[in-house]
């Protein structure tokens, strides 16, 4: 109560003074009223002003009052230099906002613990092994029987949990509905209980649901999916969900925050592990395995024995799998079985998005931090300039008794004001930009989704950032101001070079950071452009892709008839069928055996295509011919040049044969195409062979096809304009085919460049901001230095210094500083580039143009920024200056 009244009195200092005055006045009036002589009464009272001062300091919090004074003084200072202050606040806001946004993204994707109990005790298992091609592999996927064996082996110390990746799955809610997409994950029944999750509705899956393959056809919805698909309708319990030929009953809805363990993907539906057909296939490594230590088990001592125990179980499982390695070389099998298990902490979830974007977000955060640093240096520079201009004021304050602490407080107040105002703006910027950047990670099939909460973690970070900014901004000017020697400053004779030295150092720092940002961005932008302009070997123009499914399968004839019908639709130019699109998600390889020999070490990738697919994709033939309609697989094959060079080096491949394993039917090579990227734009050329869409079995009867993609070259510029009508067209034929997904070849191509585009875009943005800030900083410093040296310049001109000499005087040391800064920046850039090398495509940090372009940009900016100051120096009128000073 009393402290509160003192705080309130500090805020209302004037009112307090009035109150005290009123009371003292009433005292004297009482004295006079009681008959005393007014003069005597006043004398007996003593010095009223002294009493008021003493009373005031008792009744108000002194330091708070002086702080408030300083804040209001600082605010007035900021308002006086409006343009400078606005520039300072905006640049700081941009820097702070970018840093906070980067932190939000990094935190949400990589650091934030999953909403579950004891996330710190959760680990994920992965195995390192030597692949059959001799290359080391690290993989985090496991076979279900292997998982079951391992789980039972260590159940005393830890729980093992199986969770599959949340795949985008075709689902229908009642048999006649359209196909929808949802992210479905298969989980072992112990996941929900071990994670300590409680249902929002109904019940969750439990250990009972692991009872056996196909026995537990229940599904749990995630809260998020229940919310946006069903509007939180409680009657969803009991409704039926169809996936392929399976039917699931909805038994419950998960807790509100839990969206699965795969950061970046929101799981919509949780299904029992045992319901997936892969669960019975020993060769299929298809789900992740998590390990949750039992409470009270010490991770430091327990993990290593657990790892060894699990390794032994895993090895026994591998050796036990008789069918797994049929025909493979025994040494290779042994190498493969010799797996090393490792645990990784998985409390923050685990996903491919994390793996892919960890470096990118790191680079992004680094660039944002650099921009903030540049902005800080900039503003500190401006404040130093102002501080130097205020040296006389500071000296005066010290002479009349201000403590140096009070002076430091005065300046820190000003920088805090700047930082706080900037951080408010920055918070708005971060609130907008973090979701915006996330929305750029937007493959149409699987846009990244993250919960970007603005909770205490973000606020704590923001608060720490403000503190750092205040110190960066204020400390140097504050120390300088407090070191003012009043006598020297008031005489006007303080060393005129000392603030310039500091500012020049700051310029060097700024240029170095700016150069670093520019250098990294030019690398990222060049990477993106080279990837974007990579020669594809096929056309992505006007190609519509209808990914189509056919339940349990339809004969190739049905597919081919549908394709022919599609080609008659107005707007469709040519139509072909491929089992899956190029640059899509699917890639399948096959052993290659030449002349009945055992399969070679390098497998080749394949794709079933219909006649005309090559011309629809605009892939030319180097030799030979396209498929005829009567060609079947096995039978004919078209190979790419890498295939020909790998398996038939120096020979004419046309007419040669190969098989997909020893003692399998032969394929005759009928054509050769150039290499085109098959799965990944960044990959080096790989051996690919194309085989006819129509596959036949041993009895020469065609095999049913359960999914394929119609590739349609359209007349219109925007192929998606035809999507709706073509989807309906196929549905109306009622021949068992249903369109499951529609995309374009261009979108698939763009998907592959999303990461590069994102980092190039943001890096270019940061580069522009950094350049702008550096330009403003240079301009301010040079302008200031010319103003300070007006007298010197005037004298020099008066005694006949040539103009060139004046220009040199003004600019020489600045350009030396810039050169030093550039050099340091590029040196730093080499170091930093090594860390983000994995994000580059066909670009090296040592490329001459990568170094040249940022340096040129900085020099150009420096020229533009110094021009006004140079002109001002040249237009100095010696007579006027000398007269006024």
């Amino acid at each position, binding site marked *: 109560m009393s402290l509160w009244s003192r705080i309130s009195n500090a805020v209302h200092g004037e009112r307090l003074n009035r109150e005290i005055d*009123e009371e003292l006045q*009433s005292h004297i009036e009482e004295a006079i009223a009681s008959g005393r002589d007014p003069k005597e009464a006043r004398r007996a*009272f*003593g010095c009223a002003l002294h009493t008021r001062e003493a009373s005031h300091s008792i009744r108000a919090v002194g330091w708070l009052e002086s702080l408030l004074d300083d804040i209001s003084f600082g605010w007035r200072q900021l308002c006086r230099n409006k343009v400078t202050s606005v520039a300072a606040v905006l640049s700081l806001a941009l820097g702070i906002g970018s840093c906070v946004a980067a932190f939000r993204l990094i935190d949400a994707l990589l650091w934030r613990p999953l909403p579950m109990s004891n996330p710190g005790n959760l680990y994920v298992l992965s195995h390192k092994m030597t692949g059959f091609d001799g290359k080391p592999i690290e993989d985090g996927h496991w076979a279900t029987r292997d998982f079951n064996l391992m789980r039972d082996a260590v159940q005393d110390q830890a729980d093992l949990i199986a969770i599959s990746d949340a795949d985008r799955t075709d689902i229908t809610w009642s048999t006649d509905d359209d196909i929808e997409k949802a992210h479905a994950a298969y989980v072992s029944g112990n996941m929900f209980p071990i994670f300590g999750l409680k249902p929002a509705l109904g019940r969750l899956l439990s250990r009972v649901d692991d009872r056996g393959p196909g026995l537990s056809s229940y599904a749990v919805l995630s809260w998020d999916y229940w919310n946006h698909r069903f509007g939180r309708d409680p009657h969803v319990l009991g409704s039926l969900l169809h996936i392929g030929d399976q039917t699931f009953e909805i038994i419950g809805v998960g807790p509100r925050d839990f969206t699965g363990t795969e950061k970046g993907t929101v799981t919509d539906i949780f299904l029992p592990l045992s319901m997936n057909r892969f669960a019975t296939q020993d060769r299929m490594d298809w789900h992740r395995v998590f390990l949750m230590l039992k409470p009270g088990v010490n991770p430091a001592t327990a993990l290593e024995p657990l790892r060894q125990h699990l390794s032994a179980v895993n090895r026994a499982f591998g050796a036990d799998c008789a069918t797994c390695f049929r025909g493979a070389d025994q040494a290779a099998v042994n190498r493969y079985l010799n797996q090393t298990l490792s645990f990784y902490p998985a409390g923050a979830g685990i996903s491919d998005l994390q793996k892919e974007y960890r470096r990118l977000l790191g680079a992004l955060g680094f660039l944002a931090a650099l921009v903030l640093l540049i902005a800080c240096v900039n503003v500190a520079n401006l404040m130093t300039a102002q501080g130097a201009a205020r040296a006389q004021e500071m000296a005066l304050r010290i002479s009349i008794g201000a403590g140096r602490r009070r002076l430091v407080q005065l300046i820190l107040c000003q920088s805090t004001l700047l930082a706080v105002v900037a951080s408010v703006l920055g918070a708005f910027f971060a609130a907008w930009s973090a979701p915006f950047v996330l929305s750029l990670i937007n493959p149409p099939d699987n846009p990244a989704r993250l919960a970007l909460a603005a909770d205490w973690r973000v606020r704590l970070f923001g608060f720490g950032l403000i503190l750092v900014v205040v110190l960066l901004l204020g400390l140097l000017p504050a120390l300088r101001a407090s070191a003012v020697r009043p006598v020297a400053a008031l005489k006007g004779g303080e060393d005129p070079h000392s603030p310039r030295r500091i500012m020049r150092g700051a310029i060097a720092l700024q240029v170095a950071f700016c150069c670093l940002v520019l250098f990294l961005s030019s690398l990222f932008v060049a990477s993106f452009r080279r990837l974007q302009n990579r020669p594809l070997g096929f056309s992505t123009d006007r190609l519509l892709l209808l990914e189509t499914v056919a339940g349990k399968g339809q004969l190739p004839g049905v597919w081919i008839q549908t394709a022919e019908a599609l080609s008659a639709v107005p707007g469709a130019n040519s139509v072909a069928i491929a089992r899956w699109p190029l640059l899509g998600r699917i890639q399948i390889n096959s052993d290659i055996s030449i002349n009945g020999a055992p399969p070679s070490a390098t497998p080749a990738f394949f794709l079933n295509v219909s006649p005309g697919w090559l011309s629809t994709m605009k892939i030319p033939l180097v030799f030979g011919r396209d498929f005829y309609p009567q060609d079947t697989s096995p039978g004919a094959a078209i190979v790419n040049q890498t295939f020909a060079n790998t398996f038939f080096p120096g020979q004419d491949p046309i007419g040669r044969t190969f098989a997909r394993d020893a003692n399998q039917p032969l394929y005759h090579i009928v054509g050769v195409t150039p290499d085109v990227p098959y799965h990944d734009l960044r990959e080096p050329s790989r051996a690919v062979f194309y085989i006819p869409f129509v596959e036949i079995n041993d009895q020469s009867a065609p095999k049913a096809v359960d999914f394929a993609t119609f590739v349609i070259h359209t007349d219109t510029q925007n192929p998606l304009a035809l999507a709706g009508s073509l989807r309906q067209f196929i549905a109306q034929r009622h021949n068992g085919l249903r369109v499951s997904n529609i995309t374009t070849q261009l979108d698939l191509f763009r998907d592959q460049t999303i990461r590069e585009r994102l980092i190039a875009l943001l890096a270019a943005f940061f580069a522009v901001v950094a350049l702008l800030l550096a330009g403003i900083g240079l301009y301010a410093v040079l302008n200031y230095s010319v103003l300070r040296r007006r007298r010197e310049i005037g004298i020099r001109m008066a005694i006949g210094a040539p103009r060139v000499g004046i220009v040199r005087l003004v600019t020489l040391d600045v350009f030396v500083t810039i050169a030093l800064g550039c050099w340091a920046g590029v040196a730093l850039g080499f170091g930093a580039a090594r860390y983000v090398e994995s994000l580059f495509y066909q670009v090296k940090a040592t490329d001459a143009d990568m170094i040249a372009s940022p340096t040129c940009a900085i020099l150009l900016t420096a020229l533009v920024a110094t021009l006004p100051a140079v002109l001002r120096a040249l237009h100095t009128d010696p007579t006027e200056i000398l007269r006024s000073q």
Partner: protein
Amino acid sequence: MAKTDALQGSLDLLVLKILSRRPRLHGYAIMAAIASRSGEVLRAEEGSLYPALYRMEEAGWIRAEWIKKDSGRRARVYELTAAGKKQLGVEESRWQSISLAINRVLREV
């Protein structure tokens, strides 16, 4: 000056004592009461009363209130709080023991 010094250590005690007898006095009345009770011996520099009052107010021994006087002007009146009553006891016993001790010294020399 000598009078003031004599008061210095005991001003709190006097103010508390006066207020315990007669609540709701303004500053001038407190001062006048001290002067009249002491037979005009104890007279402080009147202005120094106020910082002492404010200090005691901050300490929570007394509380103040603005009232309107008949003349239409405002006056700030003070009264003892519970903490002030306790403090009065402490100050009184301290004063007793000090004056006893001083008396003892005076007697023996």
